[in-house]
């Protein structure tokens, strides 16, 4: 969807919500709105798109109690605010909107979580990502390094950037809105999405991207929406395999899960954000054993998390069952940087080539 289309759509749907309230009140009815229930009990796997989406459970919010009425009032203020932003072609961060609400008297937000949540509600209702409301998170996205060229429409004009030649050694910073990016060309065989900055830097320093024609993406922990959207776009535009390289602990497997299948908080946008083709590269529990990596003991919470992953449909494959059971049995976890114990080149010269060959990428 082009930028104009997106804006048109968001404008129209938001106005439709306000119009519905207007008609309700005009007819002597209490204004109300129906929203999908946003808990993990209302998340379903969509076989067609292979991502997790909200199910059809809905809850009706009626302005019959002070709390619900205030919620609808806040929603009305936010819609008014977005309408004005779109009309004046301005944008603001989620945090800025939270501060702007200071002047909204009874409709002012108590905390930023509340305003973020409300924006997510509007995304669900309008089926438009928040970029379409000219709202973006204040933290910038992660970075990319590799043989690819993009064209970005910036506020200072159109810029064409090659993500190896035209950037510093930290790479190209992923902007808040991917919708303004055109994917020009590339010379890559695959993409590696890396959890930690240390490993990302190690691969760049060792020249792994040049040697193997790899695009390196730094996830910065649990990836931001724009990072996931970027992976989704690279994968779908250029048909490249995406490999996720994280620490070897249960929390990192969830990072992989959100890249590949989507997260509960953004299940309404899974189709845009998730990359179902993404494969898990490592660090695998079997790597800890096979390479005899330095490791830590699993805590009770780790074990609990692993056990809950065993019942998670996202991890319901033979591969994951084997790896997770092995890890519980060993009672150990390792970080990506643990490979350094075998020398700084070990990961680029030995581990990755071997693992990628095993996966049929090299």
């Amino acid at each position, binding site marked *: 969807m082009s930028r104009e289309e997106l804006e048109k759509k968001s404008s129209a749907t938001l106005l439709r919500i306000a119009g519905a309230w207007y008609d309700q009140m005009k007819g*002597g009815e209490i204004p109300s709105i129906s929203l999908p229930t946003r808990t993990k009990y209302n998340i379903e796997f969509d076989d067609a798109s292979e991502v997790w989406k909200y199910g059809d459970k809905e809850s009706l919010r009626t*302005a019959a109690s*002070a*709390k619900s*009425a205030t919620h609808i009032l806040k929603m*009305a203020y936010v*819609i008014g605010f977005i*309408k004005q932003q779109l009309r004046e072609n301005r944008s603001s961060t989620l945090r800025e909107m939270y501060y702007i609400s200071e002047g909204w008297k009874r409709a002012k937000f108590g905390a930023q979580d509340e305003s973020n949540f409300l924006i997510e509600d509007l995304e669900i209702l309008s089926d438009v990502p928040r970029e379409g409301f000219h709202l973006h998170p204040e933290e910038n996205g992660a970075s990319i390094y590799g043989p690819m060229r993009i064209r970005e429409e910036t506020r200072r004009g159109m810029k064409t950037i090659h993500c190896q030649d035209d950037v510093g050694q930290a790479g190209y910073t992923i902007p808040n809105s991917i919708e303004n990016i055109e994917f020009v060309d590339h010379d890559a065989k695959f993409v590696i999405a890396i959890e930690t900055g240390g490993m990302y830097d190690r691969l760049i320093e060792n020249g792994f991207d040049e040697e193997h024609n790899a695009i390196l993406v730094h996830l910065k922990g649990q990836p931001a929406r724009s990072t996931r959207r970027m992976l989704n776009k690279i994968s779908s535009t250029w048909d490249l395999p995406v490999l996720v390289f994280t620490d070897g602990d249960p929390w990192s497997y969830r990072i992989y899960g959100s890249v590949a299948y989507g997260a509960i908080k953004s299940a309404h946008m899974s189709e845009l954000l998730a990359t179902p083709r993404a494969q898990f590269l490592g660090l695998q529990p079997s790597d800890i054993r096979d390479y005899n990596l330095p490791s830590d003991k699993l805590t009770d919470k780790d074990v609990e998390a692993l056990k809950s992953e065993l019942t998670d449909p996202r991890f319901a494959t033979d591969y994951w069952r084997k790896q997770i059971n092995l890890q519980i049995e060993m009672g150990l976890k390792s970080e990506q940087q643990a490979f350094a114990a075998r020398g700084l080149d070990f990961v680029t010269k030995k581990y990755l080539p071997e693992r990628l060959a095993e996966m049929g990428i090299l």
Partner: protein
Amino acid sequence: MVLADELAKQQRSISVAEFFEKNKHLLGFDSPTRGVITTIKEAVDNALDACEEARVLPDIFISIKKTANDIFRIIVEDNGPGIVPAQIPFVFGKLLYGSRFHQIRQTRGQQGIGISAAVLYAQLTSGVPTIVISRTGPKESAHRFEIQIQIETNEPDILKSEAIEWDRIHGTRVQIEFKSTMAARKKLIEYLRYTSIVNPHARFRVELDDEAFTFERVSQEVIACPVAIQPHPHGIEFGQLKRMAQGGSERLLDFLVNGFSRVGKKSAQEICDRAGLEPTIKTDSLDTDKLKTLLAAMQAAAVPAPPSSQCLSPIGEELIRRGLDKEFQMDFVAARTRASSVFSGHSFMVEAAIGYGGKLTADGNAILLRFANRVPLMYQQGACAITDCVSRVNWKSYNISQQGLPTGPILILVHVASTNVPFTSESKDAIASIPEIEKEVVLALQDLGRDLKLFVSHRDKNKLAEDRARAVCAIIPEIAEKVSEIVEKPIVDTSPIEGKLMRKLIVKKSTRAGKVTIELANYSGFDGEISVYEISADSASDSTPRVDFVSEMDGQFTKVWKILAPSREVSRISYSGKGGGILEIRGIDDAKKMVVDLDV
């Protein structure tokens, strides 16, 4: 000389007075601070008992004044029947002298120790004799005594006695001076307050140093004086049985029928059969062994429970509620009087009450008021069976938090009335753990817990209705304003929503750009004149419609508009001003109106 002879020289009988001189704590005189409370308690107990017997409404005057450094003069005066002059020295100057000890009925005092112990205490600490004035009727003259106790013999020592003029027609006044402190002032006031709660028919006038206050009576009814009953065969002990048996030469069967409550010919015959004694045998001929068999047979025989309607005097649910209402401002009070019951042949009855909210403090433990025979128990809360029962109830199932005792803005009152209250000690501070009594207390409290739960859930429901009203009357109009702005249409009128939902007279006050508007939308079905009262800093001199009445005081204007508010129509008052203040609507049922200040 052998040691035994040596010791024999020192062995001699101890007078009761001597014994108590050495064991003051047994009577509640363990510290000077506590002495004041115990003395007043004993004197007030006597006064209330006496008034009850004379069937007069008690008017009790209590005064505590410091006379010297640490000497306090305590005066307690009542309008009871008075005491005949010949008896006065014994009542006040002899320990263990009383009229109620041998009776089986509910009384406050019992053993006749209390007030004479105070006299003894005074004599030991200040040396000042106790002054007693009493008058028994209009035709008699009043008598004034100065009394002490002869410690060695436990006999009264009359220092002075004279007939005097006294303005009271009947009554008794006792004046005791002893060494003390007023450290327990708070506790003392608490004691008087609690006493007044469970004696709602009594009035207490109190002068404390230079401060005077009154605990007013809330009931004008004289309470029925409990009538003494005969002992019950299950509740008698060997000594008493022996005394009774040797007191006459009746035939055993008649002795049982005449001397005990609830024993008829049939029960008496059963007892005789069980004991293997001839019904015709003369009681004074029974030896100790036979008496013991008789006692066992009496305990074992099936005899109905002792009568309780006459010997017990419960306060009653209504009066407990009124008593509590008078002293504590609470949102909710419920009381229960349980049916009478029996432990070891003694009748007893449990009453309890629970209060919630209002001015009670919201955090910390519940306030627990314990009473035995209408006397507040002020000490040893932790050792008392009542406290234990309160902790044992699972308050959480009534949605009340609990840490041992329930916590929150809660007051719990428990009154145990009995012909023989089982105290843990002679200072009568705590009730002993008797399973029969505990069961009744727990049942009463559980019953009250259910009432409270109901009240709280009902109140929450009302809160919900108020919350809804607020949403409808204050927030929806704001939604309407914003939404109309977004869709760029004229502001939608939300009053149909209000009318549909509220069915009330809705009064909304708002201030905008120096203009105060009071809007009255009448969906209540009520059709008539109402009055709008407003107190604020605005004079409303330019009001439309005109103010019907206005008065100023300290820059605050009280304004009244009389408005005819036709059903299903909206009326408005507006004037220049800053708003704020108090708005009230009169002339319409509370349930049919709803006032919302939109500026708040």
